[in-house]
């Protein structure tokens, strides 16, 4: 066994505490997003949304959680039990793992990986399994159609997501998210990398299958898509997983394009939170205002419009970086 000095032990403890705080913070933020989304949707649809439980309806999520906990956790007899149970856990684990590399302030990150950007892509690509396995294990045609759509949608949009990030990586000269933020001291990446920002945001939206890209769920056509057969806390995990995705993508946009913790007067964390929160609200606004495209339109849009723009963006950025260095 290795021997720990006292300082080392304290360091380990601090890391564990930090990890726990970030984990709990992320999950809490995701849970909070649920009432916030409902209130905001209400605002934009000229109604109130839930405003009874607690001040301004803020405790609605607690009520929902209590309800979901006491619901029957049913596994259909025709389902593949093991896969059915594993599926909702995958999305929670991958989204929570992705939070490990996000630098909230210069000192607050769990794992300062040198390949941070790639790690994020890896986690988001593993998230696909959650949906696919949920759809397959349910043994239900709607769930399966939802899963098929997800497989195609997420694999395609991951490509554009990765390509749009390359421009940012080129500018920073590093895959490390902390370095990427530091490289934005002079100017936020959103200005030189505007097309990349747009592509990343759209692809991120499709990655976490949020409206308008919620074809895997598409309640009007597929009842609830891949989680049709889920109930109780397993459904709750999909639900929170989706909101974790929103928080994650918002944090990523903040880190990669809006300078993370950088900003005058206020402390770094406040800046980070404000920026990320703006994007979370923007996700809700998108859901309130946009319509869901047809499936072939989604694919055509990705491969025929986003892909060329992303490639041209990488090429131009690369040329400029080479020319100026």
């Amino acid at each position, binding site marked *: 066994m290795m021997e720990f000095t006292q300082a080392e032990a304290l360091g380990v403890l601090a890391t564990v505490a930090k990890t726990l705080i970030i984990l709990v913070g992320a999950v809490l933020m995701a849970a909070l997003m649920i009432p916030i989304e409902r209130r905001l949707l209400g605002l934009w649809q000229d109604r109130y949304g839930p405003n009874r439980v607690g001040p301004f309806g803020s405790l609605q999520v607690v009520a929902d959680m209590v309800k979901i906990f006491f619901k029957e956790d049913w596994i259909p007899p025709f389902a*593949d039990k*093991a*896969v059915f149970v*594993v599926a909702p856990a995958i999305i929670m684990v991958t989204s929570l793992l992705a939070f490990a590399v996000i630098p909230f302030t210069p000192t607050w990150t769990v794992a300062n*990986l*040198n*390949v941070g950007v*790639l*790690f994020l*892509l*890896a986690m988001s*690509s*593993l998230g*696909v*399994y959650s949906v*696919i*396995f949920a*759809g*397959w294990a349910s043994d239900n045609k709607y769930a*399966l159609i939802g*899963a*098929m759509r997800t*497989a*195609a949608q*997420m*694999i395609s949009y*991951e490509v554009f997501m*990765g390509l749009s990030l390359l421009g940012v990586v080129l500018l920073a000269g590093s*895959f490390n998210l902390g370095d990427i933020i530091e490289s934005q001291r002079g100017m936020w990446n959103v200005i030189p990398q505007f097309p990349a920002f747009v592509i990343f945001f759209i692809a991120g939206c499709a990655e976490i299958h949020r409206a308008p890209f919620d074809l895997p769920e598409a309640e009007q056509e597929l009842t609830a898509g891949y989680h049709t057969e889920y109930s109780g806390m397993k459904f709750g995990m999909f639900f929170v997983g989706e909101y974790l995705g929103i928080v994650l993508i918002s944090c990523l946009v903040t880190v990669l394009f809006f300078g993370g913790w950088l900003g005058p007067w206020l402390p770094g964390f406040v800046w980070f939170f404000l920026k990320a929160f703006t994007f979370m609200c923007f996700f809700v606004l998108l859901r309130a205002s946009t319509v869901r495209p*047809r499936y*072939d*339109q989604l694919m*055509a849009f990705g491969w*025929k419009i986003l892909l060329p723009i992303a490639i041209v963006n990488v090429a131009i950025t690369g040329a400029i970086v080479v020319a100026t260095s």
Partner: protein
Amino acid sequence: MEFTFFAAGIVALATTARVITCANPVHALLYLITSMLALAIDFYALGAAFAAVLEVVVYAGAIMVLFVFVVMMLNLNNETVAREKSWLRPQLWAGPAAAAGLLLLALLWALIFGGIEYGGITGEELAAREVGMNLFGPYVLVVELAAFLLLAALVVAAHIGRDDTDQVSDAAARGERVTTNVRESR
């Protein structure tokens, strides 16, 4: 780091064994994915962080998804599982297993008596920059050849998947409703 390496290695071996012996194809794929993740951890422990994430992104995240996709399409049921099980008879795997065991013995022999020293696992990281320098320095020819191969594959895929009914697909791309029957319009 050594502990991580060997733990992940054991996981990789065990799950790979299950990939072969599992009768349900989707479960086998699940084990295969786990084994790839374990391999990625091994890469990371050896210091190849870049290779580790690429393993997850490309193999576990994209290629395996397509595998799962296809297997899902096949609509496998309990009969398939039973048939797979019936194929797993000792007569069938005994021969190949013996041959493979012989190879393993040879490998172990070479490893133990071949004078190879155990270098230790330090987890020193090989940065993405070095990987890139190597790829486009000494190995540039290999990279180019791989690019050719992929391009060829792409062209073939585009050829197989091409759509003769240009009109229809264009209309669909423009978001118009296509009412003509594809076969009739030919």
